[in-house]
C-alpha cells in the first residue's frame, strides 16, 4: 500500500469529482476565513466591552474621589472652630478660665498626644500595572505569546 501512494495517477479524475474537490477547497477557505473573522469579532467585542467598562469604572472612581473630598469638606465645615463654639455654647458649655481651672495630678498621664497622620488617605505608589497584559495585546500578540510560543508552552508543561 505504501508503494502505491507514490504511483502517478493513471487516469484523470471525473470532472464532477474535480469540481466537488474545488468547491470543498473554496468552502474550506471560506469557513476558515469566517472562523478567523468570528474569532476576531468576538475578541474585538470583548476588548471593546472591557474598554468601556474600564472607562465607566474610571469615571466612577473620579466620582468617588470627589464624593470623598465632599464628605471631608463637610466634616471640616461642621467641625470648624466657629461651628463647634456655637454648638458648645448651645449645649451650655463655657470656656474654662484661669480663675476656675483646677489641676489634678494623674499618675502616668502624659498629656494630649499628637495624632498619627501617616494613616491618612494618601495611598502608597503602585508598583505593578493594574491592567492585565491581555487587554492591551493585539490578537497576533495574544496568539503568539499564549498559544504559538513554544517557550510559553514548555514552561506551562513544566509547571
Amino acid at each position: 500500500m505504501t508503494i502505491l501512494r507514490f504511483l502517478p495517477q493513471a487516469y484523470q479524475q471525473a470532472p464532477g469529482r474535480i469540481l466537488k474537490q474545488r468547491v470543498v477547497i473554496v468552502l474550506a477557505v471560506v469557513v476558515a476565513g469566517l472562523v478567523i473573522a468570528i474569532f476576531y469579532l468576538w475578541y474585538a467585542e470583548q476588548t471593546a466591552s472591557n474598554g468601556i467598562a474600564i472607562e465607566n469604572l474610571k469615571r466612577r472612581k473620579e466620582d468617588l474621589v470627589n464624593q470623598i473630598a465632599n464628605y471631608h469638606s463637610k466634616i471640616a465645615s461642621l467641625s470648624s472652630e466657629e461651628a463647634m463654639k456655637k454648638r458648645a455654647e448651645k449645649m451650655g458649655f463655657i470656656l474654662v478660665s484661669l480663675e476656675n481651672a483646677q489641676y489634678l495630678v494623674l499618675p502616668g498621664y502624659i498629656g494630649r498626644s499628637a495624632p498619627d497622620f501617616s494613616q491618612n488617605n494618601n495611598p502608597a505608589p503602585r508598583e505593578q500595572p493594574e491592567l492585565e497584559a491581555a487587554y492591551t495585546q493585539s490578537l497576533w500578540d495574544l496568539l503568539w505569546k499564549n498559544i504559538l510560543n513554544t517557550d510559553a508552552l514548555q514552561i506551562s508543561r513544566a509547571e
Partner: protein
Amino acid sequence: MLNSFSRLKFVGSCFSLFGLLTIGKMIYIQNDSSYRDLAQRLENKFYSAPWTIYPERGTIYDRWGKILAINQEVYEIGVNLENVDNPGSIASVLSSVLGAKYQDIYDKASTKYQPDLNKQYPAVYYRLLDSVTRDKIDVLQELQDDYAKLRQTLNSSSEETPSLNGLTWHPYLQRIYPEKSLASNLIGFYAARWQEDGQAFYGVEEKYNDILTGTPVTLQLPFDPKDVTELPNVLPGASLVLTIDREIQANMERILDDAVKLNRAESGTLVVMDPKTGEILAMANSTRMDLNEYYKLADIFTGTAPYNRAIGATYEPGSVFKILTMAAALDKGVVKPGTVYVDEGYINVGGAPIHNWDYLAHGPQDMVGCLQNSLNVCLAWVATELKKESFYSYMQAFGIGHRTKIDLAGEVVYPFRTPADSNWYEADLGANSYGQGVSVTPIQLLTAVSAVANDGKMVKPHVVKSVIDNGRQYNTPVEILNTPIQSTTARTLSSMLATSLEQGEATKALVPGYRIAGKTGTASIPDAANNGYLKDVTNASFIGWGPIDDPRFMVFVWLEKPEGIWGSTVAAPVFGEAVKNLVVLMDIPPDDVRLSVSNP
C-alpha cells in the same frame, strides 16, 4: 525564445528591484526619526486626545489634625452648542436656580454652532458658570429630565418647546477653607477659576505650592474603546500639618481684635511661639479675610498694606530692643545685674543728645532698675561700655538685618546699618541701643529674643510641623540658628526681666501663679517726609515668655498707633490676657502645682 526569455528576465528584475526598493524604503521609514515623529503626530491628532489628570491638592491641618484647607467638588456648567434647542429655557433656568444674568446666558447659549476651526468664529462649547455646588446640580438634573419628558409627551422638536438640551456640567475639585478667616494671613490661598490655571498666593499655600499640588500627568487617551490604556496612578499632593493650634489661634485673634477696637489702633499683630522648638502656635493679624472670598483681597488689603504683618512689616521696635542690648552687655561681662549707673536723665552719644522717655533723671539704678524704668540713657551708656564693635557683632549674631527664613512666603527684611556701612554714624550706637534707627519684623524680634528664653539658643521659627507624602510622615526638625549668648546670661536676664515686671514696669502683663519675663516697648514712628518722628503716635509692643524656669510660650504683641500711646498701658494688658488663655489652652498648671509635681 532567447529574446522572450531576456524580456521576461528584465521584467522580473524590474519587479524584484521595485520590491527591494519598497522594502528598503519601508525599513528607512521605520527607522527614520522624522517619519516616526510624523506618525506620532498623526496618531495623536486622529487616534487619541491628550488628557491631563490633576492630582488632588494636599490638605492643610492644624497640629491636632483639624482641617484648615481642603478640596470640595464643584461643577463647571456649559453648553454644547450643537445640541441646544432652546437657549431661552437654559437662560431662564440658570437665572432662577443659580441667579445668573439671563441676557448673558442667553447670548452665550444662542451662539451659532461652528465646528470648523478655520472659520472666523469657531464655536462648539461655551463655559457659562463655575463653582456650582452639587445640590444645585441635582436641581438642574431634575429639571433637565422633566423638560425631556415634556418634549417627549408633546412629541415636539420645536424650538419653542422648553428644553435644556445642550446644557452640560462636569465636576472638578476646588479649594475651600472651612475656618474662613482664621489664620488667613498664615495659610494664604489658592485661587483657581479653572482647574488648569490655579495659582497659590501668600503663606504656606504659596511657600509649599509645589508639594501641595503634586505632579499632574498628561497622557494620550485613544478614541478607540478597544484600545485600552493603563491609567497612571496619580498620587495626590502632599498634605501639611501646621504647628499652629486652632483653638489658640482663634483665641488670640479674638483678644487682638478686642484690643485693636478698645485702643482704636490702626492695626495689631500677635504671635505665639514655642521658644524651645521655634514652632509658631498662633500668628494673629487684625486685618484678615475669608479665604473662600479671595477675590476681595484688593478691597481688604489696600495700597501697600502687607498681607501678613508678622513677617511682612518692619517697624522700629523701641524699648523691647533693650533686651538684646542688655543681653549682649551681660554676656560680654561689661555689666552685671548689680552694676549701678547714676542716671542724670541725659547722655550724649556721637554728638546726639539722648533723654529718657519721661525726660527725668532717675538717679542711681542697677541694671534691673534700668530695665524696669526702661531708661534710654542707661541703655545708651551700656552700649557705649560695650563698644560699637561688640554691640554690632552681637546684633548680627541675634540675626538683626537678616531674614529668619521662616517657611512662609513674603518675609521682608530692613537693612541694619553697622559701622562697616558708609551711612552709619556714631550717634546710631546710642539710638540703636534702645531700639531706634533699627527696623525689624515681629518674627525677627521673636527669633532674636528666643535666645534669651531658650538658654542662649536661637531657634528657627517654622509653621510646618510635618509633611505627609505617600502615606509617610516627615517631621520638621528643630533648627538652632545661632547661640549668640551663653545659657547663664540667658537665665540671668530672664530673671532680671521677670523681677522688673514684678516690681512695676508693666504689672498688667502679670498672670497670677506664673512667673513671666517680658519687656514693654513704646516706639516713635519715623516720619520720612520730615526726616524725623511723627508726633503723638507710637507703636506699642510687648514681648514676654513663661514660665521662666521652663518656657513653653513666647508672646509678642504689637499695636500700631493706639489711642493710648504707652506699651505698658496698651500692649502689656493684651499680653496678660493672651497668657491667661494660653496657660489654660496649653494645660500649663500654675508654678507651685507644676514644681510640686516635678520636685515632690
